């Protein structure tokens, strides 16, 4: 478990802000930092990485104290064994894909594990290519492989998927989850995408203007209070079409497009790109044989 308790005064784009963050990141799980831009999510991540210094606080990873401002302990990023994936991938432009990944390992690294990562992230075809010739999704896959090549104790993902199109995003979410489960890496994911957080995170910490406003599972944090639905899932609105008396809303949900009938009241404040909760109270399961 990684326990964090930090405080820092920030001068952000929205004026002065006091960031206060206290949280326990469970070992082997995915914790999402969720909130609007400017809430201090990336700052928290950088403080965890040792790239930024808080005004005061303490960070402990297992039994290892990374930061304790009272006892003047500060471990630099190099001493923390972390993997960090930036929003813009930050690949080294003068190295090809293979060299970018091997940069993390050094000479005495075990190439077997790296080979497995390359396999899992489908990078075999790209190894001799340079970052300038890669697509956004490919870049982030390389950045992920590079961050994981050192077998970090903690994987920090700073909106790694926000610049990707829907399909690439979905694909990479799957891959990150598969790798996370395979290696049981403690992961902190920064995101402002409810659908992404719901899919990927075990625990959500909601941050607003530097303060934690909610913590819990994705459904505890995002689920509408007082609603006892039997089935629910979070998706994204693609189109809203009027058909006779009703509206048909196409929702992108679990890599599928489903159509939902809605009334005028339901769609009044809805627009394409909105994140929606699809739920059913009177859920009638249908049954049909498929192994005939």
């Amino acid at each position: 478990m990684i326990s964090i308790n930090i405080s820092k005064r920030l001068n952000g784009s929205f004026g002065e802000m006091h960031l206060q963050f206290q949280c326990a990141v469970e070992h082997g799980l995915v914790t999402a930092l969720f909130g609007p831009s400017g809430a201090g999510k990336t700052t928290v991540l950088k403080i965890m990485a040792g790239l930024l210094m808080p005004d005061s606080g303490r960070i402990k990873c297992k039994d290892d104290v990374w930061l304790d401002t009272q006892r003047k302990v500060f471990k630099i990023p190099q001493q923390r064994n972390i993997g960090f994936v930036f929003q813009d991938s930050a690949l080294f432009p003068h190295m090809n894909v293979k060299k970018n990944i091997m940069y993390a390992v050094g000479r005495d690294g075990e190439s077997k594990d790296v080979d497995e990562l390359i396999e899992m992230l489908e990078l075999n075809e790209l190894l001799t290519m340079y970052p300038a010739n890669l697509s956004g999704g490919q870049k982030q896959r390389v950045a992920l492989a590079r961050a994981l090549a050192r077998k970090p104790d903690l994987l920090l993902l700073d909106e790694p998927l926000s610049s990707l199109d829907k399909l690439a995003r979905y694909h990479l979410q799957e891959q990150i989850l598969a790798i996370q489960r395979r290696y049981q890496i403690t992961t902190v994911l920064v995101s402002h995408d409810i659908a992404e957080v719901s899919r990927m995170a075990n625990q959500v910490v909601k941050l607003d203007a530097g303060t934690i406003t909610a913590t819990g599972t994705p459904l505890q944090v995002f689920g509408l209070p007082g609603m006892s639905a039997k089935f629910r899932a979070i998706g994204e609105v693609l189109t809203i079409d009027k058909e006779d008396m009703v509206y048909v809303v196409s929702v992108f949900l679990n890599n599928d497009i489903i159509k939902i009938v809605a009334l005028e009241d339901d769609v009044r404040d809805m627009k394409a790109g909105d994140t929606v909760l699809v739920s059913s109270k009177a859920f009638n399961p249908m049954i049909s044989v498929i192994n005939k």
Partner: protein
Amino acid sequence: MIDLQPLFITLKLATITTFVLLIVSLPLSVWLANGNSRFTTLVQAVISMPLILPPTVIGFYLLIFLGPNHFFGQIIDQWFGIRLVFSFMGLVIGSFIYSLPFMVHPVVSGINSLPPGLLEVSYTLGKSKWATFFLVTLPCIRNSVLTGIVLTFAHTIGEFGIVMMIGGNIPGQTKVASVAIFDEVEAMNYQNANIYAGLLFGTTLIILILVYFLNKRFAQTTLK
């Protein structure tokens, strides 16, 4: 036939100045690019002054400062037995100061143009600041460094005012090609002046063509 010695002295001066500037400017530029205190602003302003000041002003102050009557010049003279004015060593110091902005500016802007994440990611991958500098920063700003090297070299070749002030015009020691041209014109030997001028003209043109060519090649290999 012209005396080739001024040309050799010019090349020697340009080579030594460029080399010393490269060694000094790399750490200096890293410091300037990272610092945003008032002190770095002041240093940046001082470094840039040769771009604006007439070379004779710098030459004049150096002449006073490095001369044996001034404290600094006196120490160097007495302790090391080196006379800095009217000597080749003095020329190197003058050229160093005069060409400093031509090396520092491209390197600083090269470092500033790197995405900050590039260095941070290297730190998170366990690489020290030194390793990051040699493995990431330097290869990524090689175009800027090359530009700095060439500008410094070419600029030192074309130097005249400072060289006249602190170097005097001692044949075989401080008489560089640009001064030789002035000499020949003064003596109405237009033929010789023409040869010196033509050689400098050609050398500078070839150097610059080479730089633009290499810059293009570098850009292509990164995109390959």
